[in-house]
């Protein structure tokens, strides 16, 4: 275990806990009197308590402070000394937000950047005036200003009865200085609520060296730090974990076992990537082995090879499955997003999630999360109407928004469906005409055309820029991202009844369905996600415009790219007059081009192997793969061609 891995573990676990906090808060907001209310408060309390413990251990002072304040309020709610009303929920939600951001900042060594003073003040307003053992960073600053001192003491992790040891330390310090407060409080220490880091605020004339001496003399102490008001957060170089090893290089994927988490192992996704690649190579090797075995005519050998072949397939499937996580990992954050967006706009939205258990590749899920947030915000902002407008239109005042995930063969379909006003085709049309994007005579838009227009960078019909969905960023960003992941996107919109945005994603990133293209005797793979159609390159569709070759495809003029030329092969020499070259119409977002190749030889699921591009080499290959017959094949990076 090293510092970096601790930090990563802290981050991932804290994120989970913040999500749990948000979920429970929303449940509480819906029904603060209900039978589940007590359980919700308990759950929030436990989650915050755990974050606090971890943060204190990592030396993240601000995270610790905020979670401590939050915990104090929650403890009151738990003991029913505090009534949960909308004011309380609002403050708690704000606190959860800040906690979420702080956790990220803390790991980046920048937790000092977030000012939590007003939030802490609000949290404190929720608890009674009489308080003992106050502790805060602002308190630390005050103590420093008045000549006081804040000391942070870390106890050895293997020390027995650490809370008792902490009390001995307090006793020793108390003899030479006046202790104004401690974290944890004396009461917490007595109840053994202690994670090994003790912070003492004290005043008096005792020099630091003397304080350090008596602290260390109390035993089992590993570090003694004096916190200054100007540097409340620990220095990144400070020993965060006892006996740490030098910081490791980033790319070392490690396997970590999360303590107390049942029979689960946390595995760095990079390690899974490596496993996936290895499995891919095994599959290629298997193909050759099968061929050799059958050529050798040795029955026993062939049988053995067949058996290992089955095992290899199983192995690949298992590795693929191990990269899968339920979409709820990410989706459960969204109720909060929707609620905030709706509140900011004065709208009422009933949001539900379907298919939480559907699984998706971990990296893909992380990559698509922001896009889903865009779509949800768009739906709340532009789709769902204000309550009074809805009532006037004969709809329920509360809008309906559904996020769903379904499995469809080897793809996952994610849909965002609202029952709002739908996309105003006339306005999109008018805007497109004004911008000169489409012909002025056009009177209607197909759903495909609609998507293509909305996906244009900066194309937005929103009347005003709102805080919620920003300026025109949305569909185009989502569209680009989805395509980059090898997926596809669809829009369905019925005026007055709502809209559905669907995103279709492959199950996993490591395997890509590709068209195989031959140029001379070399093979190239073109990811199908970027292939629009293929046509024959007849002389009548090629033109030259301003010295550049273009191709006419379905009334569109597209630039023509000859792969042959790109890779420096000689001119095409057809075997016969009817042996025409092929044009693959490729697209990324709304940029399209025709890619000329000799022949399409088929489709294949290929295992992408990232490779280190030759310095100054051609930039238009995104990786390589080995085909079933063992031939190497470069993968065309379509986006760099366009």
């Amino acid at each position, binding site marked *: 275990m090293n510092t970096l891995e601790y930090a990563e573990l802290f981050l991932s676990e804290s994120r989970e806990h913040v999500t749990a906090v948000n979920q429970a808060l929303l449940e509480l907001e819906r029904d603060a009197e209900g039978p589940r209310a007590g359980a919700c408060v308990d759950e929030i309390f436990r989650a915050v308590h755990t974050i606090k413990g971890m943060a204190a251990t990592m030396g993240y002072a601000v995270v610790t402070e905020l979670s401590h304040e939050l915990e104090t309020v929650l403890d009151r709610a738990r003991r029913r000394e505090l009534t949960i009303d909308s004011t309380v929920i609002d403050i708690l939600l704000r606190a959860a937000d800040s906690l979420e951001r702080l956790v990220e900042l803390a790991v980046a060594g920048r937790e000092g950047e977030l000012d939590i003073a007003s939030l802490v003040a609000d949290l404190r307003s929720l608890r009674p005036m009489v308080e003992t053992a106050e502790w805060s960073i602002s308190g630390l600053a005050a103590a420093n200003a008045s000549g006081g001192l804040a000391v942070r003491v870390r106890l050895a992790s293997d020390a027995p*009865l650490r809370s008792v040891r902490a009390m001995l330390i307090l006793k020793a310090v108390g003899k030479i200085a006046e202790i104004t407060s401690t974290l944890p409080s004396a009461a917490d220490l*007595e109840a053994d609520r202690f994670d090994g880091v003790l912070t003492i605020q004290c005043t008096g004339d005792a020099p630091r060296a003397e304080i350090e001496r008596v602290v260390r003399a*109390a035993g089992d102490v590993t570090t003694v730090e004096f916190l200054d008001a100007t540097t409340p957060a620990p220095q990144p170089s400070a020993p965060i974990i006892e006996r740490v090893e030098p910081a490791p290089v980033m790319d070392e994927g490690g396997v970590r076992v999360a303590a107390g988490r049942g029979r689960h192992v946390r595995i760095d996704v990079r390690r899974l990537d490596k496993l996936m690649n290895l499995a891919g190579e095994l599959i290629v090797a298997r193909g050759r082995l099968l061929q050799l075995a059958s050529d050798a005519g040795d029955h026993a050998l062939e049988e053995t090879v067949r058996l290992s072949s089955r095992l290899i397939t199983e192995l690949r499937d298992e590795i693929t499955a191990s990269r899968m996580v339920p979409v709820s990992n990410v989706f459960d954050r969204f109720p909060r997003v929707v609620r905030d967006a709706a509140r900011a706009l004065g709208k009422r939205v009933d949001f539900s999630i379907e298919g939480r258990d559907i699984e998706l590749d971990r990296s893909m899920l992380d990559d698509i999360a922001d896009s889903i947030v865009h779509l949800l915000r768009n739906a709340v902002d532009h789709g769902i109407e204000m309550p009074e407008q809805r009532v006037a239109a004969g709809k329920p005042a509360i809008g309906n928004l559904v996020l769903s995930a379904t499995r469809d063969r080897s793809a996952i379909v994610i849909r965002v469906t609202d029952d709002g006003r739908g996309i105003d085709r006339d306005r999109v049309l008018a805007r497109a005409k004004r911008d000169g994007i489409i012909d002025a005579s056009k009177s209607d838009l197909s759903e495909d055309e609609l998507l293509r227009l909305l996906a244009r960078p900066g194309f937005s019909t929103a009347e005003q820029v709102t805080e919620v969905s920003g300026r025109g960023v949305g569909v185009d960003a989502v569209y680009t991202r989805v395509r980059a992941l090898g997926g596809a996107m669809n829009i369905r919109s019925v005026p007055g009844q709502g809209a559905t945005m669907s995103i279709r994603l492959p199950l996993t990133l490591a395997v890509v369905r590709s068209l195989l293209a031959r140029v001379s005797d070399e093979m190239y793979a073109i990811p199908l996600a970027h292939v629009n159609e293929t046509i024959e390159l007849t002389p009548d569709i090629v033109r030259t415009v301003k010295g550049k070759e273009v191709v006419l495809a379905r009334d569109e003029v597209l630039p023509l790219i000859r792969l042959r030329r790109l890779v420096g092969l000689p001119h095409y020499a057809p075997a016969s007059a009817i042996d025409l070259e092929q044009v693959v119409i490729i697209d990324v977002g709304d940029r399209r081009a025709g890619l000329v190749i000799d022949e399409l030889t088929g489709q294949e699921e290929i295992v992408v192997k990232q490779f280190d591009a030759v310095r100054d080499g051609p930039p238009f290959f995104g990786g390589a793969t080995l085909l079933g017959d063992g031939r190497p094949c470069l993968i065309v990076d379509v986006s760099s061609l366009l």
Partner: protein
Amino acid sequence: MSHTVLVCDDAIFMRTMVGDILTQAGFEVIGEAETGVQAVEKYQQLRPDLVTMDIVMPDMGGIDAVREICKLDPNAKVLMCSAMGQQALVVEAIQAGAKDFVVKPFQPSRVLEAVQRVLA
């Protein structure tokens, strides 16, 4: 001159073990006690430099014994010997005046470290 020690524990096994650890480290065990009452009596009689005190003993427990001893001698140096899970009792003993603690099962090095701290 070596430091003198009074070892208080109701179990012979523990007294022997603590005695051995301390003797090997150059301390002089000048007395043993099996009960709290005995511990107080022997302390008054022997005035050792150090007392090791079990918490749970018949006839006045270790905590009360610490309290009595500290009444006799506010500078008495008492090291509590606790089993796992006796956190609250250790806290109480320290509030009663004990200077430090060790937790069973004893590791000689930990016992000696604690003794050094108490005598420092």
